[in-house]
């Protein structure tokens, strides 16, 4: 460092912190673009099982979500502890499924409607009775593309 002469006459330059928020804004916009607003609050406890044969869901707008699980602790008094179905952001029964599917369908342009997928987020401990009823209702409503939401199984 002795080769370099200290510059005289100039004070050592201060780092301008005015660009720091710009960097943060860039990060912020990145996150805004990459992530998706959680569209509904989970009113049921869902811990999805693990699996290996996974495929990614396509566009988010083409997916409607059905949740099945035990109600969250703050809903237990009104709804009990047996597993329930939640469509979108409300509790519902199997008979509400056709209406729910229709409501989602109208928001999707015609040419993409055949690619609508129903994502079933079901808790691992739920018994097959209610899941089967939901599947039967989906079949009756013509919604055949179904995705069983699951996490990637960690290889042991």
């Amino acid at each position, binding site marked *: 460092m002795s080769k370099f002469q200290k510059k005289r006459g100039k004070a050592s330059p201060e780092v301008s912190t005015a660009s720091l*928020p710009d960097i943060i804004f860039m990060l912020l916009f990145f*996150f805004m673009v990459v992530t998706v607003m959680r569209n509904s609050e989970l009113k049921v406890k869902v811990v999805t099982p693990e699996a*290996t044969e996974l495929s990614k869901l396509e566009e988010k707008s083409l997916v409607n979500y059905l949740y099945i699980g035990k109600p969250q602790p703050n809903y237990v008094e009104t709804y009990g502890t047996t597993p329930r179905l939640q469509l979108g952001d409300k509790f519902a029964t199997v008979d509400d499924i056709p209406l729910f599917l229709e409501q989602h369908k109208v928001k999707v342009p015609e040419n993409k409607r055949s690619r609508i997928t129903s994502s079933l987020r079901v*808790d691992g401990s739920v018994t097959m009775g209610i899941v089967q009823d939901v599947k039967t209702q989906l079949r009756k409503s*013509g919604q055949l593309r*179904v*995705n069983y939401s699951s*996490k990637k199984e960690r290889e042991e």
Partner: protein
Amino acid sequence: MAKTSARDRMKNEVNAGSMADIAFLLLIFFLVTTTIAEDKGILVKLPPWSEEEVDPTKLKTRNVFSVLVNADNQLLVRDELTSINDLRERAKEFILNPEKREDLSEKPTKAIISLKNDRGTEYKTYLKVYNELLGAYNELWNDEARKYPKGGDTKYTEYSDEIPIDIRREIKGKIPMVLSEAEPTNYGEQ
């Protein structure tokens, strides 16, 4: 607006340091309220709904691989108690039938897997079973894809979207995934 002289402007400097704080706050807000999609899962095409029951007698038993799951999450594969870990291999053996055994499928295009569970079966078990069966088919499709040349001297390493659609259709035509799910029994539901 009153004229601001250069001197006035010099005094009214906004401290840019707090802008970073505001930006951090916004960032943390977004980090907390959004989810980076945990949206993977097993894609399934349900069979269309029909009021009539499929006639089971038309199928030869050798072509049907029956998997029953009871309310205790045990598997009965072709009337034999099986562990979940053996399911994939047995399914593959059934579909391909490399030794041309009499009790396994005639050919892959005629192989049907029938899955029946109880209303009391846990979803976790059902998904694991489905995962293993789908895994069996995926491995068979991968093996089949390896027979196709990619270009030059290499061949495809697995069944994936890089393979042209008509070859993919051919592969799936040779080994179609036919999984029939029956109405669940009701012995164990609470």
